[in-house]
């Protein structure tokens, strides 16, 4: 079985809908590491990230028929699945932690809490050292992207946490995106 190269998104979707093994292989080779990168930034250990990425592939495989090319991009769709699955996973772990009578993670004491759990699991510190383009964002913008994208806070929650008006959160998020697009342009 020869590997596939440079499939158009259209062809890939078609093959995925046919549950073609080569399509799986292609999907994995081209997208797994990026999806894994998103997941690693959301869940708190590489062990959990491995669980999540497997679920993500099962979901993509199972729900590819629901994907509508008219409504969006395949890659974005997959990233959203990865992100939501990871956020759900994180929430369910947080509930377990809460049952263990630990406080819910909070933006202020987050750092400390991670230190506490470091003994039993690999922590996010595992991933420190990988290149992070977000580090080049203006700090007050970066926090918005991180809280929204990787922590799953609503904008209302972010506004409360940071004590700024909701409208400001929205316009700053936009500013953050614009700078990010610029950085990505340079990165390419």
């Amino acid at each position: 079985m020869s590997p596939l190269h440079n499939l158009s998104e259209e062809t890939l979707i078609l093959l995925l809908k046919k549950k073609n093994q080569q399509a799986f292989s292609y999907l994995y080779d081209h997208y797994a590491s990026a999806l894994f990168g998103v997941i690693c930034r959301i869940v708190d250990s590489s062990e959990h990230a491995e669980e999540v990425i497997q679920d993500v592939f099962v979901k993509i495989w199972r729900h590819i028929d629901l994907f509508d090319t008219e409504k969006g991009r395949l890659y974005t769709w997959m990233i959203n699945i990865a992100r939501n699955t990871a956020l759900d996973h994180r929430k369910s772990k947080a509930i377990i932690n809460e049952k263990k009578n630990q406080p819910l993670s909070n933006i202020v004491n987050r750092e400390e809490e991670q230190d506490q759990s470091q003994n039993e699991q690999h922590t996010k510190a595992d991933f420190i050292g990988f290149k992070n383009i977000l580090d080049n964002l203006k700090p007050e913008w970066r926090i918005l992207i991180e809280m929204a994208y990787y922590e799953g806070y609503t904008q209302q929650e972010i506004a409360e946490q940071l004590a700024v008006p909701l409208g400001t959160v929205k316009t700053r998020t936009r500013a953050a995106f614009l700078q990010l697009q610029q950085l990505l342009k340079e990165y390419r």
Partner: protein
Amino acid sequence: MDIKAYISSGIIESYVLGLASEEEVSILNCIRKNNIEVEQAIAEAEIALEELADSQAMEMPMQLKQNIWDKLNAENLVPNQDIESTKYREIPSDDINEQISIKRNNAIVPLKSYRWAIAASLLLAISVGANIFMYQRNGDNQSQLDQQVSLLHKQQSKLAVLQDKWNLVQNPAIKTIPLKGVDNKPDYRALVFWDQASKAVYLSIEHMPVAPKGKQYQLWAMVDGKPVNAGVFPLDANEDIASKMLDIPTAQAFAITLEDVGGKDAPTLSALCVMGSI
């Protein structure tokens, strides 16, 4: 709606981050359909997150690919015909024994796979044949349709011309004067429609040969025994058309001569074709 203000409100970024409310999403979906700028901005924000993911990619742990493939099979998410290939393997090129054993496995069931191959080839051949046939038939149908459409157009324009003429005949102010062929051209016929109110004159060549190259039919009104130029019949006119000529206030007769293109000031009597008196 001010689209610039809408875009700069940050709603699109909220949307791609999955933070927009249901109401906001339905408004956005409605706008994006009709506004390329919004659609573009959404795509750009999505691409930014895609590229961010690319830039932050992490190496996948070994074995995970096989694990996931096994999982898909375990959950019956892979169709049965793939069952022989469900063992997902990346065969190391140096592992010759492995390759040989796989070849041997294949050799046990050659008949079965050939049968499938033959059936598949036959189906493919039939499908290709059917496609060619349908394609050609489609082509035939298309050209027939084209012919019919152009015929219809021709008939429609003919009908329009006849309707114009019919309107002239129906008009009570219009006097119709038949022009008949002169002695040596007995089968020539033409009609002059003369509007008694507006004095407008229309000429319809009913049965006369197309004017030879360099020549043109010219209409004359006979006013008190003298010919008055009533205009030339347009060279490019549809032969059935009733062409508007020059206005003629009074006349006792009309006549047509065949003149050089552009017409003349005085008729060439030897070139007289038809005439008719009122």
